[in-house]
């Protein structure tokens, strides 16, 4: 008891410099996490403030200047309609990041809710898990492709098409955690006290899920950005009027020998962003000690 109060006192009294020193140590311990995070932050800032970075109009066609290699005027060259690749790449970050973040957030929300409900109400368990298994058995990209074929091409529909295959995976993870945590003494005690199920879910189980869900979320984000690129490459992704990295590369695929810069730069940005997100995910997993 005495030790606890002393620790308490220490905690309150820690000066700011000490906290900074602790952060610095964390940095050195997880260099990859930091590198990934820094890269990601730079890309997000660039995307959000795109007009500030010497960009032009991503949709403007200047057919006279089609297929020009990188130069002082067009840093990443132009495509077959004379559009500036640099501008499109920076603006493309917006779309790709939006898709990644949205898919991640939405599938986490739905998946967690489903997982919590299924984990707690045993009766639903067998049926729902069979359905989840069924959906997971269909390769994600084929499912997303089939879904896109039903819907008009738009960013919103791409997000929906990417969310649906992800939900079962999140549900699985959450359900597994719920199943193990249910038996925990704390929970049993709360139930004995008559605490309602929703409250149990929110107060006891959910906090334990935050860390693994955060890690899972970063991986989903990375995967969504990649799959959007695949869908666009196959012609079923975001509409061509909307520049996303996948789109720019899809339109440039015919020019890989003639004007490889169309595929090269968005590809580098895409790989770098996905890499950064994956590193952040890995780092978080190590730092938060998630299995």
């Amino acid at each position, binding site marked *: 008891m005495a030790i606890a109060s002393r620790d308490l006192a220490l905690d309150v009294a820690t000066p700011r410099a000490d906290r900074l020193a602790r952060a610095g140590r964390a940095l050195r311990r997880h260099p990859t996490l930091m590198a990934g995070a820094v890269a990601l932050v730079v890309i997000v800032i660039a995307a959000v403030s795109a007009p500030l970075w010497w960009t032009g109009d991503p949709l403007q066609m200047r057919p006279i200047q089609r297929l020009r290699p990188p130069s002082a005027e067009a840093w990443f060259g132009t495509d077959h309609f004379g559009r500036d690749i640099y501008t499109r790449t920076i603006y493309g970050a917006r779309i790709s990041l939006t898709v990644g973040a949205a898919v991640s957030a939405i599938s986490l929300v739905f998946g967690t809710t489903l997982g919590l409900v299924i984990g707690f109400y045993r009766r639903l368990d067998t049926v729902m898990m069979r359905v989840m298994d069924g959906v997971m058995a269909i390769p994600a990209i084929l499912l997303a492709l089939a879904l896109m*074929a039903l819907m008009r091409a738009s960013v919103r529909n791409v997000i929906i098409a990417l969310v649906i295959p992800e939900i079962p995976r999140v549900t699985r993870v959450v359900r597994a955690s719920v199943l193990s945590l249910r038996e925990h003494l704390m929970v049993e005690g709360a139930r004995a006290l008559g605490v309602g199920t929703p409250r149990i879910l929110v107060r006891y189980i959910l906090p334990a899920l935050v860390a693994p869900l955060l890690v899972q979320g970063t991986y989903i984000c990375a995967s969504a950005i990649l799959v959007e690129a*695949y869908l666009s490459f196959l012609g079923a992704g975001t509409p061509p009027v909307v520049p996303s990295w996948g789109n720019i590369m899809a339109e440039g695929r015919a020019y890989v020998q003639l004007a490889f810069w169309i*595929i090269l730069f968005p590809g580098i940005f*895409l790989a770098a962003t996905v*890499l950064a997100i994956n590193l952040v995910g890995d780092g978080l997993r190590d730092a938060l000690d998630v299995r």
Partner: protein
Amino acid sequence: MLAEVLRRLMATIPVMVVVAIAVFALLHVTPGDPAVIIAGDYATADDIARIRAKLGLDRPFLTQVGIWLSQVVRGDLGTSIFSGLPVSTLIKQRAEATVSLTILAMLISVGVGVPLGIVAAWKKGSWIDRLVMVVAVSGFSMPVFWLGFVLVYVFAISFAWLPVQGYQPLAAGLWPFLRHLILPAVTLSVIYMALVARMTRASMLGVLGEDYIRTAFAKGLPPGRVLVRHALKNASLPVVTIIGIGFALLIGGAVVTESVFALPGLGRLTVDAIVRRDYPVIQGVLLIVSGVYVLINLVIDMLYVVLDPRIRY
């Protein structure tokens, strides 16, 4: 054991039924209409209606599901709306390319990924470890088609060592078969390789900390022997799991790879069918692919028993 296998096989049936219905439902809640495409350029509304009736597209949804399921159970996957060929024929024509590509890619990934993971685990914390992991993650982060184009540009165009596209069946000879598959398989394997390497490393790290490993090292056994014969065997369980899960990733990647290298595989077949709303083909392929996936997972579950005698059902 046999009873267990049977039990698990039976358990997959409801899953497959769900898949079948989901696939069917997906395609029929649709604005696109194959009847219009088939009807041709001069069709009137009557013609289109007649074709829909002929294809059975105008019957109530549940009836269509029922008919389809009863056909599937008898092994009849239907007929492609566009080419008029039976779906099973189309799948048979295209299966070899996809299966060859996937297996070759998996062999490369496991063959390269596992040793990389072992090395990274053994030298944990060193620059080798960091390098391997960063390379692995990079492979995982690159778009498959981008890598494919880069490889084609370097190896097939600049150096002209390998063909640009196309597929030669095994019947045409082993070397032509391999030659045409090397670039696509390497492209595809890169993603998978990363996963395998990471999982191997993580799993090995867990095992390498165990007492019996330290004893083995202390006894003076050569490191290679310790790593492979003792550590790997015990670490293999999660790796095998990853191989099962990764299959779905491979199939997804195969769809894109086949497009880049013009391989006549199931991936391209499905993409074409989806775009044209050739329902029977889409349904048939998704069903078969999902079935294979479920079976692979079943096999892997069974492998657990072999690899870890502690696991008993």
